[in-house]
């Protein structure tokens, strides 16, 4: 049986761990709040842009290189992970899902990875995947320019014919305890669909100023930028939520562990006392016999 001093030491160490996980939970909670605000701020723009595009799509037969489907070919898959660990199955489930999609041969001929976040970068490098681009240390300090920058890079690769499509896979924030791994096509752009409402007799085509081509030239890249930014922000929020949940579970587990260790400690102590008592009593009785 373990001796009491070892048990005491273990209890102390678990208590220390509990304090750390508790602090990490608080930090994650604060960061989550900030991330959620960022998501809420960015959402109206992306939504409005999608709505406008949907209306444009329903009125005109417009044509633009970014909308053209190409023959199946080589694609980019943007995998948005996190920079830091200790967030439960956040990265593991994402990477598993990404790998499953990469192995499924139906969608594309060959894929290169654009790894966002240290976890994805490390993983795909270790697994010998073709990594086209790495983006480390971005998720912990996400700026308003990061999404557009990534989007421009994808658009450039698409326009130059280097890739025939760009997909993005990320964890979408649902609520505190749930995130959903989502795979979306970024390029060629699939015009968002309009929800079925509004009178159809008003479906006159727009006037365009300066002209349709020039407008779509700014509108469509803007849409891609907004979508990448939303995906990044969503993933950042999901990451903090996952970390918060994981750290809460860890804190709870540490508490349970402390309880059972304390019980064991008390039992051991009691057993030692009892044993000592028996020894004393039987020692005292011995000469009397």
């Amino acid at each position, binding site marked *: 049986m373990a001796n009491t001093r070892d048990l005491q030491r273990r209890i102390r160490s678990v208590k220390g761990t509990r304090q750390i996980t508790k602090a990490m939970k608080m930090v994650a909670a604060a960061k989550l709040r900030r991330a959620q605000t960022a998501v809420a701020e*960015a959402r109206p723009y992306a939504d409005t842009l999608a709505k406008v595009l949907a209306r444009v799509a329903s009125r005109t037969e417009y044509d633009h290189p970014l909308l053209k489907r190409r023959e199946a070919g080589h694609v980019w898959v943007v995998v948005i992970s996190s920079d830091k660990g200790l967030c439960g199955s956040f990265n593991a489930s994402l990477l598993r899902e990404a790998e499953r999609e990469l192995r499924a041969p139906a969608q594309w001929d060959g894929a290169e990875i654009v790894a966002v976040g240290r976890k994805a970068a490390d993983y795909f490098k270790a697994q010998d995947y073709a990594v086209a681009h790495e983006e480390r240390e971005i998720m912990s300090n996400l700026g*308003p320019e990061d999404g557009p920058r990534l989007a421009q890079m994808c658009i450039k690769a698409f326009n130059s014919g280097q890739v025939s499509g760009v997909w993005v896979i990320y964890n979408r924030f649902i609520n505190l305890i749930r995130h959903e791994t989502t795979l979306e096509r970024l390029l060629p752009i699939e015009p968002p669909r309009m929800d079925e409402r509004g009178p159809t007799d008003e479906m006159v085509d727009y006037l365009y*100023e300066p002209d349709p081509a020039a407008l779509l030239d700014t509108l469509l890249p803007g849409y891609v930028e907004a979508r990448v930014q939303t995906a990044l922000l969503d993933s950042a929020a999901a990451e903090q939520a996952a970390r918060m949940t994981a750290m809460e579970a860890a804190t709870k587990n540490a508490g349970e562990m402390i309880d059972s260790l304390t019980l064991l400690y008390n039992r051991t102590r009691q057993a030692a006392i009892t044993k000592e008592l028996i020894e004393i009593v039987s020692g005292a009785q011995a000469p009397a016999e």
Partner: protein
Amino acid sequence: MAEGLYLEVVTGKGSVVGVEVEEVRLPGELGELGVLPGHTPLLTALGIGRLLYTIGGQERQMVITQGFAEVLPDRVTVLARAVRLPNEVDPEVEQRIFEEATTALKTANADDFAEITRRLRTAEACLEISA
């Protein structure tokens, strides 16, 4: 057909305004354009400049830096890179930016030209609304 006109201004930082208005004047890329209820559908790129709208005869304004607007008979949706409201503008700071940009413009090469003009126009528009 359309009675009112709903103005919505959205940027990457969230929705700025969403109100019923009587009239909107937009800083179109090819010049200012006024929108009244019942306007024909229009999609336009916006430059840098003032956006004016009237509620109950009262005029309000803000500065918009690039973006585009979708005009429908009963609503105007403005998507802008950035928006500056009158209470966010410090005339002194803008005046300084304006002067700096003016001097920089004289020595600018082709690469910087667009960026400096952008700064200049933003400062100019900010000064206009704070005046």
